[in-house]
């Protein structure tokens, strides 16, 4: 193309317009945040520039005559097993810009096994009865937090028993599911409202992420986990006491070892007030917590937060799944955390360097199995609940995660998919055409909280029904009976080492 870098035509998508169906109504022009569609004055019709298309499918979804098709552009590069097209394009891009390759959510890593897909669930046959969840009660209620080693009772005057053991604060969930941390700023206010309302209706929790909690959302506090991260954005006494739990975020699965960066353009008035940062200035979360350099330091922060919240709520520590995750988790529990959240490498993000997202960390399945085993071996599993996160795609993944040892799972990518996200991975541009990862007033209103909350509620209801079906099939009537019950899992096509780490047998055994 004229006046453009020579590699501009190596774009990812092609817009195919059905000439018979297109009526030039301009809906696509109004919907595209990247200006891939435009009105050509001289031709008097809608035209498009394929090079600008990010593959978000917004135009295709809203085209009233179904005239649009977004297709992957067939790569013209010669086949090469080593130099896959994405690597070639990365190099062209970096040769042009000299910068770090930024990406958003939807980890596309292809060569690392998705262990969920290699695990199969059991079902009852003949020797033990399966349970029909439509006829019999099925318990999905989950409590997160420390559990006592034993329960002691005393007798009251009239002879009835009274609990003597002092119980630790727990978070009560109607489903073993929570919306993971997505900060106000990285996603907009409409979606925070939607998540808060959905979590309240469902009796589960959502997580504020690092970005504070808007004053109008304090009313949903019972279903909120407030997060404290390395930038301490939006953290103050009222905030710490607003939720049902406090989470210290040490790491994120999509970008272990690095901090966060909310660009100044995304810091509007509301975000600025909630985060307690100046309007329009970049909000940078450091890579480490500058006050945590050891388990002892973490212990201090955990108890500082417990003091600040008067020991009313459990404190969670969230870490990214990395090589030594089991030992770290053990340290976290010994430091006094009531919940350990582990975020696998396939977790989502609003912005992360592509090299980090695709190459750092380990899959959640392996990390989860190892953490659960380690805490059991050390006899401290009851002292903390485990929450698994990072790439939970469906209810079967949830069931497998619980069988591997999780108490509950965090999911966010699935929640955003429910409200329209198509995983185009351009969250970092701040121009999300689906109105999700953007604070642009014109784009953000594409998320109507009424619609979004309903969709999130529907998704969790659907998963809940499916979880009940799977539990019933296994002859279990409570999610508690599945937790860490690896006998309900079998592996297909995994090596002895992988099965050893996961603690499961091969199918057929």
């Amino acid at each position, binding site marked *: 193309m004229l006046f453009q870098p020579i590699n501009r035509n190596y774009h990812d998508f092609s817009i195919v317009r059905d000439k018979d169906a297109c*009526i030039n109504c301009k809906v696509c022009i*109004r919907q595209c945040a990247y200006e891939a569609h435009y009105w050509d004055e001289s031709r008097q019709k809608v035209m498009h520039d394929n090079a600008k298309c990010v593959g978000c499918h917004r135009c295709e979804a*809203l085209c*009233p*005559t179904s005239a649009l098709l977004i297709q992957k552009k067939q790569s013209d590069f010669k086949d090469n097993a080593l130099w896959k097209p994405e690597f070639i394009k990365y190099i062209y891009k970096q040769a042009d810009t000299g910068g770090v390759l930024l990406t958003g959510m939807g980890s596309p890593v292809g060569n690392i096994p998705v262990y969920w897909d290699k695990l199969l669930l059991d079902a009852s046959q003949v020797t033990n009865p399966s349970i029909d969840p439509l006829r019999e009660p099925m318990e999905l209620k989950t409590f997160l937090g420390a559990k006592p080693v034993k329960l002691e009772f005393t007798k009251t005057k009239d002879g009835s028993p009274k609990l003597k053991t002092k119980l630790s604060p727990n978070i009560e969930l109607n489903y073993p599911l929570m919306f993971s941390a997505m900060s106000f700023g990285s996603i907009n206010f409409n979606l925070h409202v939607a998540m808060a309302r959905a979590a309240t209706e469902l009796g589960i929790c959502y997580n504020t992420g690092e970005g504070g909690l808007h004053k109008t959302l304090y009313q949903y506090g019972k279903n909120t986990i407030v997060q404290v991260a390395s930038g301490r954005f939006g953290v103050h006494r009222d905030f710490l006491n607003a939720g049902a739990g406090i989470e210290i975020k040490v790491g994120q699965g999509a970008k272990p070892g690095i901090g966060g960066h909310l660009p100044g353009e995304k810091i509007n008035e509301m975000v600025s007030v909630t985060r307690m940062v100046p309007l329009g200035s970049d909000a940078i979360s450091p890579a480490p917590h500058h006050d945590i350099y050891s388990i002892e330091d973490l212990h201090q922060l955990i108890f500082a937060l417990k003091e600040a919240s008067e020991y009313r709520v459990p404190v969670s520590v969230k870490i990214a799944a990395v090589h030594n995750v089991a030992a770290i988790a053990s340290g976290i529990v010994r430091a006094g955390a009531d919940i350990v959240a582990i975020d696998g490498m396939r977790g989502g993000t609003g912005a992360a360097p592509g090299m980090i997202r695709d190459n750092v960390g380990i899959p959640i399945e392996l990390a989860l199995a190892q953490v659960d085993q380690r805490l059991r071996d050390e006899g401290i599993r009851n002292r903390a609940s485990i929450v698994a996160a990072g790439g939970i795609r469906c209810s079967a993944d949830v069931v497998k995660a619980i069988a591997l040892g999780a108490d509950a799972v965090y999911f966010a990518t699935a929640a955003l998919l429910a409200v329209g996200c198509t995983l185009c991975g351009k969250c970092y541009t701040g121009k999300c055409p689906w109105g999700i990862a953007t604070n642009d*007033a*014109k784009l953000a*209103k*594409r998320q*109507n909280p009424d619609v979004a909350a309903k969709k999130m509620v529907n998704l969790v209801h659907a998963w809940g029904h499916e979880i009940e079906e799977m539990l019933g099939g296994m002859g279990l009537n409570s999610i508690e009976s599945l937790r860490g019950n690896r006998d309900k899992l079998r592996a297909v096509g995994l090596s002895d080492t992988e099965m050893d780490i996961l603690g499961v047998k091969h199918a057929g055994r």
Partner: protein
Amino acid sequence: MKRVYPNKDYCIGCHICELACITAHSKSKDLILAYTVERTGEGLSSCKRVHEGGPTCVALSCRHCDEPACVAACISGALQKDPESGRTTYDREKCVGCWSCLMACPFGAIARHPLENKIVKCDLCFDRPGGPACVAACPNQALKQEER
């Protein structure tokens, strides 16, 4: 009465309501024919207009007021208030194209027909089984028909 209420907070300015309106009031009931043939040839136009200013947009159409200024202004009796349904009705045959109603309407919700001396005004899709087409088509539920 149930009116169509726009919500400017969630109107995304896609103009799909206008397309739905055109289709619902076309002879063909086919968007492609309505937009390309009937609109250009016969001046078929939407009773609803999306107004935009900065990031704000809102889809406006006849409010079917309790005391409609247009009915009071109408010199030919084409505009009437239907006491039963509450709708402000328009009789195309009686209309003489004087534009008094256009000037009287406080919402600017009445438009001139592009080709004839007639007006274009929302009829709440009274004969459409699923209710107003714009409400059904809005992808963000920014239009609602309800009692308020």
